């Protein structure tokens, strides 16, 4: 019994928590529910810590099978429920369960008094279980289960306030319907991404004959450690065990032949051999196939990690409660795409060398460009938002772009490093934003009780003040000091200011882009570098704008003027996250690179470049200039003009509107996809009824009636009667009676069929029952 055998618990504990709350939650107080849910989250985190310590102790990790799942022995399909403990999965577990626990605790305060408090924590525990399943799965299909389940939780939690009947202050749409639409949008857009992912999985199975990732990479790569590794490797790949008969990866005809080792080692062997893959009756070169697979996976990544062109669901997802935005839509779920590419680093690096796409691009180049363009675009959009959470949402999209760009450039360590630090400071920012929103709501109640009248508020409709609109804030620095300080720390970390966590991780990404350009002479590297530096500048600028708009200047509404700090259950997690956001850079401190060394064990293509002082200074200088600009525009004067516009709104004119409406992506999708889809659906439904249903009726039913009418009328009367007339009266009467039988009513026919069948059955049964 090793410590690694505990890994199933990390998923089962949150499941137990949610079942317990679903079962007895209704009899418990908020406190009881909270203890169960937070306790489950905390225990999961402890399991992750135990696993991490086990790995830190020098062990290679382990694959822990649980039970069979989809197994068709006759054709060798064997996809089990199995979990994988290696440094990459444990990194994700620590981040997910750690940040997740803090957010659970915070949510106890945030959701206090909600009518569906218990339901909320059931969903939160379900999310934790799903996300941990995603990162621990040892094959593509288990990963995919987690991948879709986190999408389901996202759906449930975005739509959590689905019964709200108050209109949304900004749009005027009824709250519950807005939440429902946002939830559906998230699920469906993610399904579009999953479409690519599932096709990739199908191709992987037919190429490699398995969906298992393969033995723990460190074991396979560190040839000197074979004795140590053999025990662990054995379970995953009996064929490759020492002494066993090795299967050649290629048949004499040049066809790839699965050796049963797992996908990643086989991918390397197949690429080295340059064999062809049999797919149905076709043969495809392995290189082409891996290019297709990696691109299809990218489709999944753009959905889950909110990259162009599928990022449109994430801003709307902010309709959910703020702890959800922090946990799912900032810190953990949306980073699953980055994890996926990192997990598949062997495939992406294999695809890097295949030159079949136009412009000499390879799939990882495309990944990097998608990330960089997304980072830049989302950065520009965030500048022109009013909603405190939407600014953070676009910032999340932008930062995810950084990570995706990093892993596309081959900077897996940098990408994962940024994933972890981002989890700290973005969770911090969202929770602090939630604290601000809560404070403003309290202020609004307070002001309302004292009968003060709002002179002017934004997004004020039918008695509802929008507590998320930054125009309704201002001057909160004094009213909410803890929230203010942690917010500033989060903003500095996000803006990449020395020495906060974001500085170190963002710098590594820029460095990877720089090296890709300078050392490999890859123009993609330069392009990505320019886009990312631009995005970083925008980041510093919009965070400056946000901090000044929320916390400085004079309160712009009574609500802001009466806002109050939140209870400790909400502020303590903030302080912990603020500490992590400050010190998180130490994880991969230059010179030692402990995180890089840690990841090398499970990510064969991991590498860490040496710190480049010049690049760091340039990045810092650009961020400094951007902050200074924000100071000049939003701090030196009141953040809003006298008529309530952004300082930049008038100078930028239509460009500001263009940015505010996220480059018109939603409008484009509405016109190019949704409207035609709805129209065609309606048309098909109409045609279905008009032609297939009614047309068929005329043919089949009408034809039947005509035949019946002919038999009963013309034929019966016209021919039979005449014949019968000729034969005689008696027979004519008989014929007349026979005519009554042909009533044209199908139920009579049905009855006769039934009687006939019953008779046959009786014949059938009698001999059986009465001897043979």
């Amino acid at each position, binding site marked *: 019994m090793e410590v690694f055998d505990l890994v199933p618990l990390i998923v089962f504990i949150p499941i137990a928590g949610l079942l317990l709350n679903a079962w007895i939650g209704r009899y418990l107080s908020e406190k009881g529910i909270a203890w169960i849910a937070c306790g489950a989250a905390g225990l999961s985190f402890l399991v992750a810590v135990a696993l991490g310590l086990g790995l830190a102790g020098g062990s290679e990790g382990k694959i822990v099978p649980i039970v069979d*799942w*989809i*197994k*068709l*022995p*006759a*054709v*060798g*399909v064997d996809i089990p*429920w199995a979990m994988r403990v290696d440094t990459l999965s444990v990194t994700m577990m620590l981040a997910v369960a750690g940040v997740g626990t803090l957010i659970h605790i915070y949510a106890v305060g945030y959701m206090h008094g909600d009518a569906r408090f218990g339901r909320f924590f059931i969903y939160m525990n379900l999310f934790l279980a799903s996300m941990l399943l995603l990162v621990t799965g040892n094959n593509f299909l288990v990963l*995919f*289960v987690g*991948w*879709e389940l986190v999408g*389901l939780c996202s759906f449930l939690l975005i739509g959590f306030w*689905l*019964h*709200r*009947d108050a209109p949304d202050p900004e749009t005027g749409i*009824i709250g519950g*319907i807005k939440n*429902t*639409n946002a939830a559906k949008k998230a699920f*469906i857009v993610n399904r*579009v991404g*999953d479409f690519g992912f*599932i*096709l990739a999985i*199908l191709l992987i*199975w*037919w190429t490699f*004959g398995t969906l298992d990732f393969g033995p723990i990479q460190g074991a396979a790569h560190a040839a000197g450690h074979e004795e140590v590794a053999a025990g662990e490797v054995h379970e995953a790949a009996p064929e490759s065990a020492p002494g066993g008969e090795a299967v050649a990866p290629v*048949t004499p005809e040049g066809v790839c*032949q*699965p050796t049963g080792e797992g996908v990643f080692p086989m991918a390397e062997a197949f690429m080295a051999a340059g064999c062809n893959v*049999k797919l*149905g*009756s076709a043969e495809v070169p392995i290189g082409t196939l891996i290019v297709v697979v990696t691109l299809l996976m990218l489709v999944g990544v753009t959905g889950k990690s909110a990259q162009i062109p599928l990022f449109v669901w994430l801003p709307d997802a902010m309709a959910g409660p703020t702890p959800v935005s922090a946990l799912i839509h900032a810190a953990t779920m949306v980073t699953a795409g980055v994890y996926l590419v990192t997990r598949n680093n062997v495939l992406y690096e294999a695809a890097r060398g295949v030159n079949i796409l136009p412009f000499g691009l390879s799939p990882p180049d495309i990944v990097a460009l998608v990330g960089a363009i997304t980072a830049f675009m989302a950065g520009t959009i965030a500048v022109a938002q009013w909603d405190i959470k939407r600014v953070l949402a676009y910032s999340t999209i932008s930062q995810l772009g950084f990570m995706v760009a990093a892993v596309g450039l081959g900077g897996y360590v940098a990408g994962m490093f940024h994933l972890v630090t981002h989890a700290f400071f973005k969770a911090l920012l969202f929770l602090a934003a939630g604290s601000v929103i809560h404070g403003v709501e309290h202020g609004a109640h307070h002001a309302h009780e004292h009968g003060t009248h709002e002179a002017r508020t934004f997004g004020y409709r039918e008695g509802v003040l929008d507590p998320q609109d930054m125009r309704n804030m201002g001057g909160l620095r004094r009213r909410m000091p803890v929230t203010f300080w942690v917010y500033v720390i989060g903003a500095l970390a996000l803006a990449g200011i020395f020495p906060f966590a974001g500085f170190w991780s963002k710098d590594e990404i820029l460095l990877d882009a720089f090296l890709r350009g300078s050392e490999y002479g890859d123009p993609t590297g330069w392009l990505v570098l320019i886009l990312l530096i631009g995005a970083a500048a925008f980041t510093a600028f919009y965070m400056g704008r946000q901090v000044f708009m929320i916390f400085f200047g004079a309160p712009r509404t009574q609500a802001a003027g009466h806002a109050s700090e939140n209870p400790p259950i909400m502020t303590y997690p903030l302080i912990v996250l603020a500490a992590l956001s400050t010190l998180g850079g130490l994880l991969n401190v230059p010179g030692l690179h402990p995180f890089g060394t840690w990841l090398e064990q499970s990510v064969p293509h991991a590498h860490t470049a040496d710190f480049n002082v010049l690049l760091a200074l340039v990045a810092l200088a650009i961020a400094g200039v951007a902050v200074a600009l924000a100071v000049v525009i939003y701090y030196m004067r009141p953040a809003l003009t006298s008529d309530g516009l952004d300082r930049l709104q008038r100078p930028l004119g239509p460009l500001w509107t263009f940015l505010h409406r996220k480059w018109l992506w939603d409008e484009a999708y509405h016109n190019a996809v949704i409207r035609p889809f*709805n129209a*065609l*659906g*309606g048309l*098909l*439904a109409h045609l*279905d009824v008009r032609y*297939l*249903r009614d047309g*068929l009726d005329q043919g*089949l039913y009408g034809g*039947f009636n005509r035949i019946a009418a002919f038999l009963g009328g013309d034929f019966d009367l016209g021919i039979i009667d005449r014949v019968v007339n000729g034969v005689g009266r008696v027979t004519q009467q008989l014929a007349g009676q026979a005519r009554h039988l042909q009533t044209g009513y*199908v*139920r009579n026919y*049905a009855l006769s*069929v*039934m009687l006939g*069948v019953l008779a046959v*059955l009786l014949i*059938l049964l009698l001999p*059986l029952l009465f001897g*043979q």
Partner: protein
Amino acid sequence: MENTPISLTTIVTFLPIAGLIVVLFINREREDIIRWVTLGTAVITFLASLGMVAAFDASNPGLQLETYYNWIPGFNISYHVAVDGLSMLLVLLTTFIMPLAVLASFDPIKERVKLYYCMLLLIETAMLGVFVTQDLFLFYIFWEFTLVPMYFLIGIWGSENRVYAAIKFFLYTMAGSILMLLAILWLGVNGDTFNLPTLLEKLASGALVFPEGVEVLLFIGFFAAFAVKVPLWPFHSWLPDAHYEAPTAGSVILAGVLLKLGTYGFVRFNLPLFPQASIDLAPVVAALAVIGILYGAWVSYAQKDVKKLVAYSSVSHLGFVMLGIFALNAQGVQGGIMQMVNHGLSTGGLFLLVGMLYERRHTKLMADFGGIWKVMPLFGALSLIIVLSSMGLPGLNGFVGEFTILLGSMGSNFLAVGFTVFAAVGVILAAVYMLYMFGKVYMGPVIHPENERLPGLDWKEVAVLVPLIIMIFWIGLYPTPFFGMMDSSVDALVTPYTAPGGSVTAAPELAPAPVAAGEAASVGLAPGY
């Protein structure tokens, strides 16, 4: 061939008839006794079918629990029933769905109660008969016999347009079966037997050879009957009407079991009897299937009525089943059979949900609902699980079937990759129409005051839904025993279509000789003959 004693298969098949006889002797006024006797019969039948599972040897690909009786020797017609891996699960599905359908009828059905439950028992025997029969003539009798009770279920206990829907159902499906009857007669006359295993043996040994062009015609004969029943696009137009007008239990039986008679027919007859025609026509059938997947989903999305939406979604789901079957490999066929069961559970469940809504509000229009989750929290949660199962959420049953089907079609020797790609688009669309429905009916605020005080689920409704949900999770999380039940039979079935071993790298033989194909098939299907 020697007569055998009565096997468990025969007993299970005719247990509902035994119950029917008991019901006949109950006074029509004693409605509660009639209900409980029917429910008891259905439950006993289910338990007996579990006995079949216990006696069933999954490692044996051939027929088991056989009853053979030389019934009408003059015409070479036998009473021959048995189960193998292809039919075992479907027998279980039938016996599992029936008690739920009976229980779901307790409250809604108030008129002509005795006749109603007699019809339910009749249809159970008829459907079981279809799944277990190994004689073509007997098969035809059971096949046609299923029409009659369903005709009355729709025509008497249906909603407004019931007579129209019932007649259409009856005529349309009957028209399809006539061609099948001709094909059966051809086989029976030329093969000197209606016994399926004997026919397969004769085909394998060359004692029966199809003349030029006849194999395709015979394939089409069976195809006509099965395609209408499935229904395969564009033969689906009877289905929305039948579903819409049928009473809840009728819809549940229709979706849960009756449609599978068609898909099962393809597996049982078309694939083993006509390998060459199956190969030649696989792309055609698969194309219809994929069109059905997309078309059904799209039209479903455009509906305003919940029940119609669910009805059209069946066209989409059964398209997946057909795609899997005509991938002509073990993954596809196993996925197809698994998905038959899954569709029975999830779509049967959806119709039950619609029925529960209808009982409360007497409307099926989505616009009349909204916010139901808030009013009926337990119902909302159970509904969500069934909806998610229907749209193939991983971890639930639908995904296991769809994934295995797509795995089969992706690697099929006879289908291009495009089939899989377009079918996978159907997975996106499933989310679109199901969430559209779920959003409209269950989510959002309660907009109609009538909906504010709907009664929650009673014990009967819970008792109907909970078994479904258990199965949804069981198959989703641990389908191994279910796949295990059919693994060897399906492998034997597809051997003619795949190279030895069915391995990924094995060279596909595009056109195996029919004789060799039949030989291999008969090895699997009829080891005892």
